[in-house]
């Protein structure tokens, strides 16, 4: 069962049609890049997929479950269990250290302490920050913070990772490192990923590219 299937998704803001019958499917272990001009509806697509705002028409299936049939609490639980997020501005919680940030989704899922600690350490090792587990965020560079964010997004083994410009705030070298890491880890947990980006080099590293033009999704070369 594919982690994400979007069918005929429509979203309007007033008279303006932002997404017009968008169809996308992401298989397990597949990373799909979404590209498009500013205002083409990339962010709206992520919001609709995550169940953060309602669609005007169409359906979103995550791991075979139709999101649109859920109420707010059920959508939240779906995000908690099945989705991992990576933001452009990292959005780590400043009052938690690196390990506690990674552990947060596991805490919410009620993992016991031993399993949680082991998973957190494994994720930190995987992103190359095993020695910085107790570091405060202000002591970490932008690249390191985004690695922590990737570890947090994948710690609970989600079925789907939603990443929006995960390399937008990083220099070219860090960007490529983080991207490679994210692709590798996503594939390692067997999750599907939808990656919104402006960067064509980054998009080309993904398995497939979808371009949003006038609200419609087109396969890009």
């Amino acid at each position, binding site marked *: 069962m594919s982690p994400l299937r979007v069918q005929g998704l429509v979203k309007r803001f007033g008279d303006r049609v932002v997404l017009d019958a968008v169809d996308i499917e992401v298989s397990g272990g597949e990373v799909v890049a979404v590209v498009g001009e500013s205002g083409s509806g*990339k*962010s709206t697509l*992520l*919001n609709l997929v*995550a169940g*953060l*705002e309602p669609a005007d028409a169409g359906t979103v299936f995550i791991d075979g479950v139709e999101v649109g049939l859920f109420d*707010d*609490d059920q959508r*939240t*639980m779906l*995000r*908690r*269990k099945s*989705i991992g*997020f990576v*933001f*452009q*501005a990292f*959005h780590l*919680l*400043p*009052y*938690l250290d690196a390990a*506690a940030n990674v552990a*947060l*989704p596991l*805490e*919410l*899922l*009620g993992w016991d302490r031993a399993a949680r600690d082991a998973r957190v350490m494994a994720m930190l090792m995987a992103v190359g920050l095993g020695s910085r587990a107790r570091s405060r*965020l*202000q002591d970490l560079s932008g690249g390191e913070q985004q690695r922590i964010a990737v570890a*947090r997004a994948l710690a609970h083994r989600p079925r789907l990772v939603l990443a*929006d*410009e995960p390399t937008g705030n990083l220099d070219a070298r860090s960007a490529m490192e983080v991207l490679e890491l994210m692709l590798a880890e996503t594939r390692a947990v067997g999750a599907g990923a939808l990656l*919104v980006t402006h960067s064509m080099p980054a998009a080309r590293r993904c398995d497939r590219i979808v371009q949003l033009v006038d609200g419609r999704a087109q396969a890009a070369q």
Partner: protein
Amino acid sequence: MVVRRQRNDGVRPVAVTDRSAWGWIGAGIRGVWGWLAAGMRLLRLACLDLVAWRGAKMRLAVAIGVLALGVGLGLAIERVNAVAVAEFEAGMSTLSGEADLSVRGPRSGFDDTLLARLVSRPGVAAASPVVEGSRNDLASGVAVSFQGVDALRAVAVQPALVPRAADADDRLANLRTDAIFVGPRLLERLERQVGDRIELLDVAGRMRSLEIVGLLSGVPALAGVAVVDIATAQVLEGMEGRLSRIDLRAQPGVSPAQLRTALAAVLPSGVQADTPDAHASTEAQVSRAYRANLSVLALVALFCGSLLVFSAQALQVARRRSQFAVLRALGLKRRELLAQQVLQSALIGAVGAALGLALAYGLAALALLVLGGDLGAGFFRGVAPEITFDLPSSLSYFGAGVGASIAGAFLPSLEAARTPPARGLRPGGLEQAWQPLGRIWPGLLLLILSGASLAVPPRDGLPVGGYLAIACLLLGTVALTPRFLKLFVFALVHVTRAWRSSAVIKLALAQLRGAPTGPAVSLAAIVAAVSLAVAMMLMVNSFRVSFEAWLLHILPAEAYLGEGGLRLSVAEQQRIAALRSVGRVEFMRIDEVRLNAGRPPVTVLARDIDPVDPGARLPLVARASEDVAVEGAPLFGDSPVAKAWVSESVAEIEQLSPGQLVDIPLGGHPVRFRIDGIWRDYGRQQGAIVIARSAYVAATGDSVVSNAALWLAPGARFADLRAGLRWLGSRAPLRETGEIRRFSLAIFDRTFAVTWALVAVAVTIGLAALAGNLAALVLARRRELSVLRHLGLRLGDVSWMIALQALVIVTAALATGLCAGSLIGLILVEVVNRQSFHWSMEMHAPWGSLLALTGTMCLLAMVTGYLGGRGVARAEVVRAASEDW
């Protein structure tokens, strides 16, 4: 002429190379113009920047409202006090007319032969004797305060007391013993007209009918009093052959001081000469401490307003950190940013202060209407002042409002200006921005200063040290609040670690532990308001409980006889004692004596008392260790001295302690007493001395009494007692003890009505600050909450997390406020009260009220937190984290 400009950017003065006068003038004009231009630019910037408050309208409105309340309350109380004291003093001065000196003695008066001796002294141009008194009108029950004057003598000294009769033909009206002149306000209260008659009972219970022959018009200070012939006044008061005062005019070239020195030798003991103004201010002094305390309490709201501005500005600065950094990067200088923010606070303060001025005059008029000129304390009976606009005091309170706002905003503004633009432009780091406000040493220093201030002695009877200690303690506590919160959260984290607590609880505590300064900064006003409310509740409750206990001790009998100017002769005393319904009776004579010139008179209570066991009647707080005195007379020469028990006020003001000897002027002679003990007296602020009635009679020869305490005989009822005393008529009201207690407690509550109103204001400010600041804190965390929603925290989880955090924050604030408030309450009871009123009392916590206060605040915190969290975490706001997508 060459004037060289040196980098004149509108702020720096120009350098002058041309030393001619024109050169200096030109440079001066340019310099002033430069400063003006810079000022205008800053003002423009400050006004433009005000738009930034759009997102914090509620907080701004609450801060402005509280500033207005502070200015309004402070100025209203100042105005009421000022006009009441002014009218009281004007009234006293008017009564003495053109007198240079007033000779006054004890309440029972002094021998009228003194008049002849004074008139014959060199330096005296004219003398006018006066008998003061007050009797109730039989028909209306209204108290008629009167001045009995000798019209022929008064013309030369107090012409205002010799008015013309309404009937122009009645030229001798001022000398008629059945005539009375009445002030217009008193006439209105009596509901009579000129030509009507009023009936007054004299001290012997005989009815005296007086015709209202004229009005005391044209002199506002006399509007509430009456004037009668001196002989009439003496009969009414039972003061035949005695006078209350003699007003004197000095001969040209003789100063009041010279005249006083010249008269000192002929004045009997306990009779003193003073200028009318000095006497008026001495009388007004009695209420000074009460007025000062009330004014200080009124400033509480202003102080809280200042802290609210501080919180609002601190939150604003933290929120706009990056905006300030951009402004600095674009070229706004550090001091310009500081000036802009301070100027903005001044504008906010000006709006609050202007509203406060309008509020003040409305509140003052309302307070006069509801509570009277003494704000319920009973100091200025008969005074009915009107509120007038006063520019200097209005301007000073306006300045105080603006100053409070600037003081509140200064630290956060300074921090905003000091932050390097590079740091300000970096995302996050809010806690870092607040860190300087969480330093520990200013708070510790203030607490040390607070302790040291307690050693400062009172100045002019005002507890300056106590006020200073309270201010430092309050500021120190506010400064240390971030530390207290950090400690509290640290303890909670460790306690909850042992439990298997949910992720929501862990997350809530982790957030507070990681970023405690922001919430603590926003708690400043809440902590201050709670501290002050707790302190005032503690003080008033301690006083009330102690007052109730005092009433129980001081009123042991079942009924009391006597009110106003009752006089009971020996025969009447015997008749009362012989009544079948009376099991036991103790008589008391009340008099007033002056122990020292320039100080208000002290009450002498000459009563039947067991000198071996005075504690049975008096609530003693100290007693002489050895018992050497012998009760009763004789009292002169080398004979054994009688005992006296002085109230705490007398002991402190006159520096007396048990075992010491004191001379009390009685019957025109100094009579020596040994102080056997000090007792607590909440009834007479200027002090009281209890002596045995036998000693009073021996010294004065006057065995008339003014009060009687009555115990019922076995089987007798109160109705039997009332029936047995019917022969006394209405001149001696009989009251049950329970009724007196209820009445006294009602007066107590009326006196503290304003204090309770101020407590209510402090609590309201606390609640408003709580709601406003919690909402602001939640809004400031919008993005963080959004991330948590992305990670799978349900709406309910977020709401409960914020509610829990609000509860933790407010519990810490309440704990801090309760501790600080208890200490402030202790200072109020042990330092401020003792130094202001010389009263001691036991501490009694108002547990019920405290529980209600803490419960309300906790509940409000949770509700505000829950609703705030719910509002912010709603689905559409979840997008906050995606704002940079």
